[in-house]
């Protein structure tokens, strides 16, 4: 039966392919490599978290189309996938800045004054925790202990760790972020 409504809407995979062909192929290749069992939702769900990890690694975040593709390939509902994404603080469905500045707010860092660093960064960047600057350069976030408590307070910029940070060091940390 043909259709008269607008369900000729572009399929998520096609749209993603059109926008980001390489990234999309990487994602589908990854999913195709998973030992999924057709029709076995329980088993396939067990691969959801690692698929999302991978997808976020590829795309930087998890836009709706990516969620849709994962949903189709794994046979899971979109709502449950979003339920999972929004549960884990590691996942995000919003694009985030190129430099992810994460201040450790674990106990060791907190007792050594990490909140002062956060305040300083907020003031310097003009954003709140969990936000990205308008130029998409910096994302300001918080982490709970990266296990480097001996260097508390700790700030992580992408994968670089700054230890024994003081508010005075913030300018330098930002200056280190050169594209």
């Amino acid at each position, binding site marked *: 039966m043909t259709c008269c409504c607008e369900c000729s809407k572009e399929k998520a995979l096609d749209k993603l392919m059109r926008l980001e062909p390489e990234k999309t192929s990487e994602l589908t290749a990854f999913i195709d490599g998973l030992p999924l069992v057709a029709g076995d939702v329980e088993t396939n769900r067990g691969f959801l*978290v690692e698929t999302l990890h991978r997808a976020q690694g590829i795309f930087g975040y998890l836009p709706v189309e990516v969620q849709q593709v994962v949903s189709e390939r794994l046979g*899971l509902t979109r709502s449950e996938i979003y339920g999972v994404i929004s549960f884990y*603080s*590691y996942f995000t469905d919003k694009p985030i800045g190129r430099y992810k500045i994460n201040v450790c707010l674990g*106990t*060791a860092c907190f007792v050594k004054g990490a909140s002062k660093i956060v305040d300083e960064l907020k003031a310097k960047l003009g954003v709140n925790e969990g936000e990205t600057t308008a130029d998409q350069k910096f994302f300001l976030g918080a982490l709970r*202990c990266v296990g480097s408590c001996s*260097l508390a307070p700790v700030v992580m910029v992408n994968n670089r760790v700054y230890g024994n940070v003081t508010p005075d060091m913030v300018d330098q940390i930002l200056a280190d972020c050169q594209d």
Partner: protein
Amino acid sequence: MRINSLEALKDYKSRLCSVSSGKTSVLMSLGTCGLAAGGAKVADAIRAELDKGLSGKYEAVSVGCMGLCYCEPTIELRDETGRSAIYGHVTPEQIPAILAAGLDGEAAGATKVKRTWYYPEEEENKDGVLQARIALRNTGRIDPEKIDDYLKYDGYQALGKVLKTMAPEAVSKEILDAMLRGRGGAGFPTGKKWQFAAAQPKGQKYMICNADEGDPGAFMDRAVLEGDPHSVLEAMAIGAYAIGADKGIIYIRAEYPLAIERLQKAIKQAREMGFLGKGIFGTSFDFDIELKYGAGAFVCGEETALIHSIEGKRGEPTFKPPFPAIQGLWKKPTVVNNVETYANVAAIIRKGAAWFKSVGTPGSPGTKVFALAGKINCVGLVEVPMGTTLRDIIFGLGGGILNNRGFKAVQTGGPSGGCITTKNLDTPIDYETLKSIGSMMGSGGMIVMDEDNCMVNIARFFLDFTCDESCGKCTPCRIGNRRLYEMLTDICRGKGTEETLKELRTLSNVIKDTALCGLGQTSPNPVLSTLDNFFEEYEAHVKEKRCPAGVCTALLKFTINDNCIGCGLCAKNCPTGAISGKIKSKHVIDQDKCIKCGVCQQKCKFKAIDKK
């Protein structure tokens, strides 16, 4: 090469040990924090130096955490007879001198650090040595990426022993007799857990390692995984044999990339040598391990939440019973144990339950690893026999309080635990005593606080953490903790009343009584224990609107004292223009305009501005 018998393994080990290179090892501590402190540059310098002609004398070995995190980068020189010298705060520039000095000489400018531990498996308790290493027996001593290093220290012999000489029931029994208790927090007897799972009908079962270590300020598990991954793999295989599982899963937080990498390597090596996979040690026992990653949720350390997370669901805990040992992953019997718990298993199997019970206290045998952090001089990992006092840990091993400030409290058990004060510093600690003094063992984080820490603010910090990390499923934790947090915020802002203090306690008790999982059941502990131990501090906030530690900004008052010479620097820097005064005469602060940013105090060169 595959090892198919215990004899072959012992042979292999003695061959490894008999090849003597005659070289002195240079152990380079390259765990996450060693690397963050600049360990890689030190390692480069060492390798460069060896290339320049010292390679006949020295051999560079990367190892995991030595526990001396406060003085990273750290290196240890050790010869084959066990003579050793440890240097801390090492810089690349010091390397030539250190290597030139060797074990006997003194390298000018370099800092020597004393080793303070012994190995109960190998040595008798040395008087006055506080640390005893069982779980950390190899950490900081072997190259975690080389299975041969692990085998040199009797690796996989315990697995060989159980597979070749023990019935599965005997394995659980040995662990039960040793009274090994879960190091993940609750202290449940591991042997009993294994027995429950073993008693379930044959079929698919799972052995899970909980490497989620979300408790901020705790990094024992990371150190084990980075420094001695095989000890965990071996123990999981032993447990799997005991309960009849053929599949193991390590659930590890994604924030530990180095540990993940080392585990992956270790698993691969163990498979190659036949310690994992099909027909282990030539028997019919099959067991393999895979890694599953967390994604940033503290509550996933709770075992039912962890299982849901592996199943690809939201990490919401569910009601127990059924317990995982009866109905766990994919509804099959599942044992969940902590990393450190596993790290003890092989030693117990090798040396026997009686030996293990000779260390520690009768109710809690063995050792416990603690992560010392906060306002303490020697931040790092220590492993002590159960029953050691806090004083020995903090002032003995920890080197006392940073900057010689006064000790105020130590928080054990993280966000689920409580504060312990001076009056309990001499309590020998184990699971029961910690509970009786209003805290708990938890995972082993110890955060030391000094007189500059405001205990109300600390309680508020922990509640902030719990609110952030609550899964949001049940009413008391989702809404109750938020209300606690708001009450504490009120108190810190000077809006609290005596009524608030009463309500804080009442609501805390109801939350403990009604919450669904361990997170909510323990989340009010920091509030209750600070209320019990530092009530006067709460009262000061509430009655006098004063923060004795000078932390709660809203309660502070900046004033100018008679030291003021009227230089005007403060007024120039005040962002709100709150300071006025004629040049060369005493300035004043308009309290209504002051936003308590503290800039003036930083700028004044004459200590003329008081903060109270």
